[in-house]
């Protein structure tokens, strides 16, 4: 029988599982892994959805399971937790930097992007409050004229 890996080790493994829709960041960067704990010989991982209808939610659960099984975890309990509701405040600083480098403006408390992820101009306009996934809105830079995704702040 395998020994129980430390929960820090499990967090490290999960930090390598990419978000299925925005693979530039990991599930840990996104802040949706809420808890990792051993309950006897079972590893319990608590996940919260970003948006209640996000179609990635079931894929995320499958990806977490596949990653942990690959590291030898046999008994796994994936829990869904909706309260407290997910907020972009839980996104890591590393995740925000990775998003911007990927071309998605990270969430800002002001409710809109602070600068163009391509040319850093603050001269921006909103095209739509919604975008290609539930968590994004569509903006455009008035200087370089590039449209870009903005990660909505909720």
């Amino acid at each position, binding site marked *: 029988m395998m020994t129980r890996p430390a929960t820090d080790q499990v967090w490290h493994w999960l930090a390598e599982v990419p978000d299925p829709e925005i693979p530039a960041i990991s599930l840990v960067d996104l802040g949706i892994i809420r808890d990792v704990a051993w309950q006897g010989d079972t590893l319990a991982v608590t996940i919260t*959805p970003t948006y209640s*209808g996000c179609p990635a939610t079931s894929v995320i659960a499958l990806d977490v399971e596949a990653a942990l099984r690959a590291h030898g975890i046999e008994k796994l309990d994936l829990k869904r937790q909706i309260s407290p509701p997910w907020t972009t405040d839980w996104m890591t600083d590393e995740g925000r930097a990775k998003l911007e480098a990927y071309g998605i403006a990270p969430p800002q408390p002001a409710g809109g992007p602070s600068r163009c992820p391509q040319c850093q101009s603050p001269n921006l306009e909103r095209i*739509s409050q919604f975008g290609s996934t539930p968590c994004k809105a569509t903006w455009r830079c008035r200087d370089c004229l590039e449209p870009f995704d903005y990660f909505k702040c909720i």
Partner: protein
Amino acid sequence: MTRDEALFQFLLRMGDNTLILGHRVSEWCGHSPVLEEDIALANTALDMIGQTQLWLGLAGEVEGKARSADDLAFLRDAWDFRNVLLCELPTGDFGQTLMRQFLYDAWSYGMTDWLKGSADPRVAAIAEKAHKEVTYHLERSGDTVVGLGDGTGESHTRMQKSLDYLWPYVVEMFEKDKVDEVLADAGIAPAPADLRAGYDDITARVLAEATLTLPEGSYVHKGGRNGRMHTEHLGHLLTSMQWLQRAYPGAAW
């Protein structure tokens, strides 16, 4: 009526509202006037279907007969649905779609805000999640009602006609029956009329900015939330939404 019987009915009302309206909004997918609006409507529909999974999932749990959210959505007929009539009306044109969305969002905003403090923690948790999404929907539907109402002569006329048509359906959201009394006494859900003042504040502000006027008259359409009489439109919607389970009972993938 026991508290759980009342709670089951209440959860059906919440989940059927989001399910039926979510389905109506999804009918726009691929048909909207511009791509950005198409994506916005599809995302709004997706949020509502997500909320449906939570509300109907809890309804099945409270009922205790092992019915899942999918069972409740796909294996009931029209007379068992508990959504308000406003949600099942055909979409109409783009303006009417956004007017209906606004009239619903403004109610949903007040309802989910109240339910965040529900005495039932399961209800409060769903409301907390839904309220964030509804706040975003209300901002958009309100802005669009203003944009179209205070827009061109044509868009103004269409928005006023939409408001005249839809307003008589609004009252049903504030109707009260035994279900509401039992849950209000238990602190689980509000007395519907208590949400009216907040609703009137939001609608008065937005409709004034949209240069639209509330229609005269006190005629009221109702009968959905208690299941007494739905419109003919619900049955047609269900034949489309439930087609797969009707044609291939028990199909799963």
